[in-house]
């Protein structure tokens, strides 16, 4: 049976000064459908949904909802029309309860007083339909990221939303939470609500969506029924060209540069591994498995650990960030915006931030050196700007990540610690970053890459250890293994499943 089209977007054009963001883009959404919107960073996905939701004005084209053209579009109108946007960042009141959040702006009144009982009863009803079995009085700040997202979705449903737009909904969610989210999306489908789903993660899109629309450089690149296409085809449509993955070279590991012995904290137990020159070691683990914790110990952020860390066969007796950097360790953190980049500062400043004597002479900055060093390394990592005074916050995610990698390359760190190096980065930039790490390590350096993106680890690493609940459960040479095996071990609850058998 042909489903009814609820929303159709026709020939939308939008220009920003100097850039044509959207050019005659068309898109349609059927009732009860999950429609994935795909494209690289800058392809126009965000612009399109912002136009649909009314955060931006279109230059031309029309948006038709239920057969009627929408003349005036604003976020307020969109809510009235039953369109809700679930943005990447949470928009909940953290210190209010779930019920209060769900009913924000629509508080049920009884004699001009907010009726808490009505609010709580209705919330609990809605929450039950989404399998959320906690008290509606719970404060939102006590919930996990995934649950907060569900609350946000429930709020949209409570506002009678017929179309829910989700912008990168799985960023920052654990594997378990992603599963729950998919359950929620299925519930939405049952309620005949349509979902526009934006994501970079190919696996998810193939699991959850019915149709895929791909944008490239602000133009339609195609709409397909998900089952009728392959991942390779989709990637090709997004990039407009085949992405070549440079062959993994056989490496002969050199001297031991990093050794971790019986490392334990409250979150990790007896972690042992070593890293040799030229090697790229992968740490496969899900969110909360303890991978970041290991890095924090090596980097000297967490000093209260048991066990020993050896850098270049020398024991770290006084762990601190400063000492770690001195011994040639560079840490690219998971959250580039929070712990990585100074967003308001220039590219040059960000690349040279950990430098001391290289750019300072008796406490005075040598601007020339700063420029020279940053130009050299930003070229090496293939940054898309040559202007070293460019403000880092205006770079795309992939380029921001390259700046951070350039930082440690410029500092000549022989050991790179990379935590989720390509999170929120488009396919092309991802490949470039992988090549970058590989090339750097082939120049007598070494790296440890921690990731929950297992195909990534299979792509770059020579050896992979899997951790689960703070314990190493398995070590693999990267030969003849696949994602499934890694996932199986990563979800083995600290190896308990295997111990039982």
């Amino acid at each position, binding site marked *: 049976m042909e489903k009814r089209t609820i929303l159709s977007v026709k020939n939308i054009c939008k220009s920003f000064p*100097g850039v044509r963001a959207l050019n005659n883009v068309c898109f349609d959404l059927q009732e009860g459908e999950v429609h994935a919107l795909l494209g690289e960073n800058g392809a126009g996905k965000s612009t399109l949904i912002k136009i649909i939701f009314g955060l931006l004005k279109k230059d031309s084209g029309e948006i038709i909802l239920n057969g009627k053209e929408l003349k005036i579009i604003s976020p307020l109108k969109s809510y009235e029309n039953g369109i809700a946007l679930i943005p990447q960042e949470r928009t909940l009141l953290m210190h209010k309860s779930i019920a209060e959040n769900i009913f924000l702006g629509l508080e049920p009144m009884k004699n001009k007083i907010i009726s808490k009982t009505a609010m709580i009863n209705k919330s609990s009803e809605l929450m039950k339909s989404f399998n959320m079995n906690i008290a509606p009085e719970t404060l939102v700040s006590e919930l996990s990221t995934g649950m907060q997202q569900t609350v946000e979705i429930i709020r949209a449903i409570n506002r009678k939303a017929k179309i829910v737009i989700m912008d990168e909904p799985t960023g920052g969610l654990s594997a378990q939470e992603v599963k729950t989210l998919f359950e929620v999306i299925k519930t939405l489908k049952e309620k005949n609500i349509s979902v526009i789903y934006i994501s970079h993660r190919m696996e998810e899109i193939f699991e959850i969506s019915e149709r895929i629309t791909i944008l490239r450089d602000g133009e339609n690149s195609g709409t397909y029924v998900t089952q009728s296409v392959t991942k390779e085809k989709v990637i090709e449509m997004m990039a407009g060209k085949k992405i070549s993955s440079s062959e993994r070279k056989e490496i002969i590991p050199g001297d031991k540069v990093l050794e971790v012995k019986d490392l334990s904290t409250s979150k990790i137990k007896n972690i042992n591994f070593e890293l040799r020159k030229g090697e790229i070691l992968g740490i496969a683990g899900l969110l909360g498995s303890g991978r970041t914790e290991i890095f924090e110990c090596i980097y000297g952020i967490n000093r209260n650990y048991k066990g020993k860390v050896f850098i270049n066969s020398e024991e770290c007796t006084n762990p601190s960030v400063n000492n*770690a950097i001195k011994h040639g360790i560079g840490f690219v*953190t998971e959250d580039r915006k929070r712990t990585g*980049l*100074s967003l308001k500062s220039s590219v040059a400043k960000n690349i040279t*931030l950990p430098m001391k004597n290289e750019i300072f002479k008796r406490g005075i*900055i040598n601007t020339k050196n700063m420029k020279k060093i940053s130009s050299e390394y930003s070229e090496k990592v293939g940054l898309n700007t040559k202007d070293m005074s460019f403000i880092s916050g205006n770079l795309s995610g992939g380029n921001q990540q390259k700046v951070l990698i350039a930082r440690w390359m410029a500092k000549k760190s022989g050991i790179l610690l990379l935590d989720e190096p390509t999170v929120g980065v488009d396919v092309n930039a991802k490949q470039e970053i992988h090549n970058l790490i590989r090339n750097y390590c082939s120049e007598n350096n070494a790296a440890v890459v921690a990731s929950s993106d297992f195909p990534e680890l299979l792509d770059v690493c020579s050896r992979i250890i899997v951790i689960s609940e703070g314990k190493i459960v398995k070590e693999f040479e990267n030969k003849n293994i696949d994602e499934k095996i890694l996932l199986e071990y990563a979800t083995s609850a600290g190896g308990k499943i295997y111990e039982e058998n």
Partner: protein
Amino acid sequence: MKKINFFRAPEFGVSVALIGLFILMSFLSPLFLSGYNLINILLQSSTYMILSIGMTFVIVTGGIDLSVGSIAVVSGILMASLMKNGVNVYLAIIAGLIISIFCGFINGFLVSKISLPSFIVTLATMSIFQGAALIFSGGLPIYGFPKSFSFLGIGSVLSVPVPVIIALICIIISVFVFKKTKIGHYALAIGDNRQAVKMCGINIFKYEMLVYMINGFTTGIAAIITTARLNSAEPLGSMSMGLDAVAAVVMSGTSLSGGTGSVTGAIIGSLLMGVLRNGMTLLNVQSYYQNLIIGIVILIAVFIDKIRNDYSYKK
């Protein structure tokens, strides 16, 4: 050649306001453009310029210092009482500067080491410092100083008033320190992203302390000038001094959340306030109205800056 886009420079808004006001005033009052009056404007702005320098360092780290007025009072009272008790003028000045740097140290320590919010810390120390000055002085002003001290407030060299010369020296040094040394470089970085700076192995505590101590130091210098000019140290001295300095800094496009800003901008901001006060006095605007107008001008300057920001982000 490096292109400088004036419109996108953070100092754009306040510069336009300053130039506009300058032109307007020269039409409205024939006395405005006289050499005497221009020197007078610089003289009146000198303390604000000096105060806004230290405040810029604090604000770019994402902090604020409301206790500036009180630090000036403490420093002024100490200098005055030392001189009254026959201590050498130079020793008294050095003592005054040391106490103001120490006050800055206390602020910096509480903000950086104990991690308390700077707004609350300096709100408290504002009261503490003034209380200390009141107790020490018994609430009475101290006046009448040696000539060599008064010279710093009312003297002049080659018909340029000494406070203007002091301000100029402070500006030159601080622009250099802000642009060319680790202190300015890291102060901006700390305000931009504290966590990122920490991850680069930079000693945040050290630089944050330095920043508050610099603010203490510039406040001490401003205290010398005001005490010498008034020939009196008042334990109930002007509390709004700090807020005026904050206003001068913020007007120049320095964000209170830190990470952006410059000393030059703060100087232009202080000059704008100086021109405004001077102009209103020339035009015989009543002092009550003066406050009202200054508030409106601050809003306009910040508004221009917001438009500039929105524009450059859209690009």
